[in-house]
């Protein structure tokens, strides 16, 4: 029971029928109004719910994609579509910051439209729109602000070029949303509508957040770009580095092969005087020189169009710094060969002007190698090798030269490759022999030893060392060959010792050791093992190194020589006098003897003798208590003179040419101690 009516009854009598009806109608009206009020409340509640959920979903959708994607344009495409469909904009368009003009924007070609045909001209104009940087920083430009801006009437906007087309499309209002990375506006989303109702602040805030989320994608992309750029850029010169070059040439080469077109031409540029600058003026000067060189090359590339007469934009030139003073150009386009050679000429020309460094005029020159492709290259590395070879060829011809790799060089390379391969096989098969040139005491003409000289048995031909030692040294085969020589010489020494076991002092075989072999960390170990293996006495052999090996690594050399001497092996310096620099260093090299190069002896004749250099060398050697051997003795005059100067030993055609092992053995047996030339006559007879 109703509590209100519990204690008292209703005091008024019932009304008559008409009044009753009127009363009921009023009640009905009140009920109706209450229902409508309830409906309105529910409608408003539903609308608010819908709107806030839609905004959350919109922001969420954009945020999720922004966090997943590394492509800002893809996220912008999604954002403009989602914002248009969610918020009912008939047209949305994306502008990007112009990378070339700070503050300017240009259309990204990304938009979303659900409009009538009359809006097409506006849409088309929006796809091509460019917005200049504001002339005045304070100018109110909706596109460059850091927050969303709503413009209820675009007709009132200053400098809005699309106003007429907007009217045609019935667009009245505009909403711009900035995409911010830090304080930089990376992009702007612009939305157009007929709707002039002011958007709620909450909506603008949601759009601001969306813009910040998209800005994050730009920031990540910039970060990734910077990382990639720094991995591919030479920090000193800012040029693409070796890795970038490798990528570029590899890609170009593959593309050309796919299209069955010749690959780009390749220039290898190496500075000639660079090491000298580094050594004399210091690394800072060297760095400045490289930066200057990079600038010059950049300038040449950017000016390239000027010297391309017919087809100025058809070519594509890529510059890189490979390492140290090595630069490279990839030259593509229909005139690539002509253009590449033109570049080389321009580079030489641009280096003519000396550069001033701390009041020193520094002039560097370049050696340039070029490789052109006529379609025959199967791998890019072959082409790189050829450009490199051409560059070395240019260097060997002197400074400021350009060499284009050609068929002749290819043949040389081919025969060199064949030579090295054959040498390697020869080492494995032992297709070498040693010849032995007698060494005599000049005063007594007594035999004291031999110099072992290697010969290559290439089929039926005996190849002299002058034709293969350089290739063996360059290819590294020399270390194998050197070991073979040492083992063979030791074996011979053992055999000969058995022929004259009591000879005192014993005969000594001098063995030449190439720098590359000598500089091996295991060299002394190798010698020890060979001595042990063959049973040779260390006193039966001598080791000769060149001046070059001695000065390359002086400390290492000194240590190795000491170790050899500690084994009782005599060590000597070969070809003395050809290296110039070592005269003064002679006292720091622990050796037993020097061998004066034959070039100092051979030219001396009775009528025209200049012994001053030789005498100076002899004086120096004797002051250091070194014994001296001369080589290249050909005349009696030379022997007499050198003997008079106090030179101890000699070898040369005057006494004997290099002999086979058998002939040398015969010599030893016949007359181990007598004057040499008589013995030889006896053998010959």
């Amino acid at each position, binding site marked *: 029971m109703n509590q209100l009516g519990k204690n008292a009854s209703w005091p008024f009598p019932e009304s008559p029928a008409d009044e009753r009806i009127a009363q009921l109608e009023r009640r*009905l009206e009140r009920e109706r109004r209450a229902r409508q009020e309830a409906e309105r409340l529910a409608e408003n509640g*539903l*609308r608010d719910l819908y709107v806030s959920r839609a905004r959350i979903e919109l922001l969420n959708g954009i945020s999720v994609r922004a966090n997943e994607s590394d492509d800002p344009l893809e996220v912008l495409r999604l954002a403009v579509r989602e914002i248009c469909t969610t918020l009912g904009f*008939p047209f949305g368009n994306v502008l990007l910051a112009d990378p070339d003009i700070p503050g300017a924007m240009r259309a990204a070609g990304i938009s979303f439209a*659900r409009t*009538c*045909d009359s809006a097409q001209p506006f849409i088309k104009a929006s796809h091509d729109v460019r917005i200049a940087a504001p002339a005045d920083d304070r100018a109110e430009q909706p596109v460059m602000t850091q927050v969303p801006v709503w413009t209820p009437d675009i007709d009132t906007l200053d400098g809005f070029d699309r106003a007429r087309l907007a009217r045609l499309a019935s667009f009245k209002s505009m909403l711009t949303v900035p995409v911010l990375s830090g304080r930089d506006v990376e992009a702007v989303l612009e939305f157009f509508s007929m*709707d002039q*109702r002011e958007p709620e602040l909450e909506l603008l805030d949601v759009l601001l957040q969306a813009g910040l989320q998209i800005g994050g994608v730009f920031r990540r992309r910039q970060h990734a770009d910077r990382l990639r750029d720094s991995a591919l850029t030479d920090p000193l010169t800012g040029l693409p580095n070796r890795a970038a070059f490798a990528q570029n040439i590899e890609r170009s080469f593959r593309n050309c092969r796919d299209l069955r077109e010749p690959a780009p031409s390749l220039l290898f540029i190496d500075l000639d005087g660079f090491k000298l600058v580094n050594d004399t003026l210091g690394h800072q000067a060297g760095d400045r020189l490289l930066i200057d060189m990079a600038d010059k090359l950049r300038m040449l590339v950017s000016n390239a169009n000027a010297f391309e007469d017919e087809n100025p934009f058809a070519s594509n030139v890529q510059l890189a710094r490979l390492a140290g003073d090595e630069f490279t150009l990839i030259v593509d386009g229909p005139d690539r060969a002509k253009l590449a050679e033109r570049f080389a000429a321009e580079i030489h020309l641009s280096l003519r002007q000396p550069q001033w460094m701390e009041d020193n005029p520094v002039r560097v020159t370049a050696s340039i190698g070029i490789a052109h492709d006529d379609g025959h290259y199967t791998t890019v590395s072959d082409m790189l090798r050829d450009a490199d070879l051409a560059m070395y060829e240019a260097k060997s011809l002197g400074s400021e030269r350009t060499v284009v790799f050609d068929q002749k060089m290819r043949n040389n390379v081919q025969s060199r490759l064949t030579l090295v391969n054959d040498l390697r096989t020869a080492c494995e098969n032992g297709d070498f022999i040693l010849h032995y040139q007698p060494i005599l005491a000049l005063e007594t003409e007594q035999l004291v030893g031999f110099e072992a000289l290697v010969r290559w048995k290439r089929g039926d031909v005996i190849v002299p060392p002058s034709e293969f030692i350089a290739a063996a040294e360059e290819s590294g085969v020399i270390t194998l060959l050197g070991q073979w020589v040492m083992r063979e010489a030791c074996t011979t020494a053992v055999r000969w010792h058995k022929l004259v076991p009591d000879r005192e002092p014993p005969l000594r075989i001098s063995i030449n050791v190439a720098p590359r072999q000598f500089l091996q960390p295991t060299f002394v170990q190798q010698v020890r093992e060979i001595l042990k293996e063959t049973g040779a006495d260390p006193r039966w052999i001598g080791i000769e190194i060149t001046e070059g090996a001695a000065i390359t690594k002086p400390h290492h050399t000194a240590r190795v020589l000491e170790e050899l001497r500690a084994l009782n092996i005599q060590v000597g310096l070969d070809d003395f006098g050809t290296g110039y620099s070592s005269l003064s260093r002679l006292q720091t090299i622990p050796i037993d003897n020097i061998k004066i190069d034959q070039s100092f002896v051979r030219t001396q004749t009775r009528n025209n003798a200049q012994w001053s250099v030789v005498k100076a060398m002899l004086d120096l050697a004797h002051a250091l208590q070194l014994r001296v051997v001369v080589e290249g003795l050909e005349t009696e005059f030379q022997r007499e003179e050198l003997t008079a100067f106090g030179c101890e030993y000699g070898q040369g055609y005057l006494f004997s040419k290099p002999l086979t092992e058998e002939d040398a053995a015969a010599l030893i047996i016949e007359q181990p101690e007598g004057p040499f030339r008589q013995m030889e006559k006896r053998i010959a007879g």
Partner: protein
Amino acid sequence: MGLHSINGGVDVKGLMFNVLEDVITDAYGPEAWDSLICMAGAEGAYSSLGTYPDTEFHAIARATATLTGQETTDVLQAFGQSAMPIILERFPLFAEGVDDARTFLLSLNSVIHPEIRKIFAGAACPHFKYAIGDDIIQITYHSRRRFCDIAQGLARGALFHFGEAGEVSHPECLHSGDDACRLDIRWAA
């Protein structure tokens, strides 16, 4: 304002019934609505946010035509025209800041339908395609529902609401075998 129900028929939002009641009551008095409900055999209790079968709506419209001696088409057109001021009064957002019928009609896709969807979840509003001339707008749309007469009336109501003189015709109709429905709104010169 309606949505397709799962049983294949079409549902109508209660709002449509509410507005219809207002229009009928305004024209013929409150008893008329009661009579029409009875005659149509309709439920009669409609809340604006609820959904109800469109058969009830059409039954009431047919009953109105019968009782008042008009064609159903005319009843629906008259309903549309009279509904416009009621709707705009109830949902002032639909025409906020709009001063003319042209702007109002062009904002159907971008303003009014989105607003309707915000309140009436799942409301099936057709997308309108416009062709715009100096004194004419042609609105083309696809809708399986037989509400083109109401739409035509609503357009007239819009003209009337903004105090503009013009004609609204319906030269093409999906239900007469055309590809789509088309409304032409032509302003008097």
